C-alpha cells in the first residue's frame, strides 16, 4: 500500500484567544507514528489537523499533496479517525448498519456495502457482532467496531486518539496486535507508552510545539524526563 505523505508547514492553530499549536513544520512518511505529551499540550488538535477536523489558523496541512482546508471531503476518505470514546463514534443502533454508515455516505451501493461490511468484520474477527445492538457492546467490542467502521472506508492512514484509554489489559493487547497488523499508516496519540515501543517515529508535543521528534525509546526518555521536572 502506497502511503500518502503528510506535510505540515508553519501550522498555527488558535481557538478564540488561545493558541493551541505554534508554528509546526513536519513531514510524516513513516508507517507507525506515535504522538505523546501532557494533557492539553495540543496532541488532539495536531491529530485533528490530519483529517481536516481542524483547519489551521495559519500555515498549511497537505495529505498526499491535497490541502486540508480545500479538500476536506477527499482527505477524510483517505484519513480515518478513531476517537477516544468509541461509544460516541458509533452512530447507528446496529453494528452492521454503523459500519455501513460511512460507505453509504460515499455512495456505495447496498450490495457493495454488504460485501465491504462482511469483509471488514471478518478481517477483525468480529463477524459475530454484526447483528448486535451498539449499546450492548463492551468497551473493547466498541473499540473494535469503531476501528471496523474506519477500516471499511479503506483509508490509507488511520489516526487513533488515545485508543487504549478505556480498555482492559486483554483488550489493550488485542488492540495493539490489530494496530501492528494494519497495512495502513497508523498515527497514535496516547499516554500508553508501551504501545509505541515498535513504532517508527514518536513526536513529543509540549505546550503547542513538537518538542522532540525521533525514535520511540529516545522520545519516551525525553517525555519521562520532562514529566519529572
Amino acid at each position, binding site marked *: 500500500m502506497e502511503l500518502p505523505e503528510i506535510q505540515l508547514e508553519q501550522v498555527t492553530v488558535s481557538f478564540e484567544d488561545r493558541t493551541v499549536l505554534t508554528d509546526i513544520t513536519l513531514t510524516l512518511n513513516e508507517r507507525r507514528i506515535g504522538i505523546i505529551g501532557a494533557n492539553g499540550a495540543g496532541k488532539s488538535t495536531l491529530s485533528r489537523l490530519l483529517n481536516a477536523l481542524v483547519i489551521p489558523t495559519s500555515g498549511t496541512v497537505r495529505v498526499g499533496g491535497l490541502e486540508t482546508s480545500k479538500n476536506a*471531503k477527499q482527505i477524510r476518505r483517505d484519513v480515518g479517525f478513531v476517537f477516544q470514546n468509541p461509544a460516541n*463514534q458509533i452512530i447507528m*443502533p446496529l453494528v452492521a448498519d454503523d459500519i455501513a454508515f460511512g460507505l453509504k455516505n460515499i455512495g456505495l451501493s447496498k450490495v457493495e456495502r454488504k460485501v465491504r461490511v462482511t469483509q471488514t468484520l471478518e478481517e477483525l474477527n468480529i463477524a459475530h457482532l454484526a447483528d448486535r445492538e451498539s449499546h450492548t457492546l463492551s468497551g473493547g467490542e466498541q473499540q473494535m467496531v469503531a476501528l471496523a467502521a474506519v477500516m471499511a472506508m479503506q483509508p490509507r492512514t488511520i489516526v487513533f486518539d488515545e485508543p487504549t484509554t478505556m480498555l482492559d489489559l486483554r483488550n489493550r493487547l488485542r488492540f495493539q496486535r490489530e494496530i501492528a497488523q494494519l497495512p495502513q499508516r497508523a498515527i497514535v496519540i496516547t499516554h500508553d507508552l508501551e504501545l509505541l515501543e515498535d513504532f517508527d517515529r514518536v513526536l513529543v508535543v509540549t505546550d503547542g510545539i513538537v518538542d522532540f521528534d525521533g525514535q520511540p525509546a529516545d522520545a519516551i526518555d525525553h517525555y519521562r524526563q520532562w514529566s519529572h521536572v
Partner: protein
Amino acid sequence: MIAAQNTSYLAKLPAGLKFGALLVLSIGLYLIGSWQILLVLLILSVLILLSARVNLRQLRMPLVTLLLILGIVFVSLGIQTTWDSALVSVLRLLTMCMFAYAVSLTTTFDAMLELFQQVASPLRHVGANPAQISLGLSLAIRFIPELKRVYLEVREAQHARGLANNPLAVAVPLVIRSLRIAEDTAEALEARGYDSAEHSK
C-alpha cells in the same frame, strides 16, 4: 425492537410492501366484528411470525408486557361493555401486534430508514430534510440507552456524595455530559464523511 439478521422469505420482500400491507391489514381488522374470524387471523399471524424465523427470544419481554396490557384492557372493556366485544377488541389488537412484529423483525433498521425517507420526501417542499430527520431518528434510538447509562452513572456519583435526592445535582452534570456526547458525535459524523449540506439537496 431492532431486527437482527433475518434471511426468511418475509425479509426478502421490500419494506414498502410490508409496511403498506400492514397498514391495510390494520385498517381491515377494524372492519371485522367476529371473534371467530379474528381468532383465525391471529393464528395466521402467529404462523407467519414463526415461518419468518424471527428471534423469539427478542419477543419474550415485549409479549409479556403486551399480554399484561391486553389483560387489563380485556377486563376493563368487559366490565364497561360486553365480554364479547372485549374479546373482539383484544383479539384485534393482538393480531395487529403479531403482524407488526412479523414486519418489524424482518425489516432491517436501514431499510426502515430508507422507507421513512421515501415516505417523508414530500416534506422537502416545506423545507424539511427527510435524510436529516431519519439520521436524527437513528441517533435518538442509538443514544437513548447511552443517555440512560450516563444518567445512572451521574445518579450513582451524586448518591455517593449524599446528593441523590437533589434533582439539580443530577440534572446539571447530565446535561453537560449529554452536550459533550452531542459534540463528540457531531465530530464523528464529520470524520466519517457525513455531509449535511449534501444530504439537504
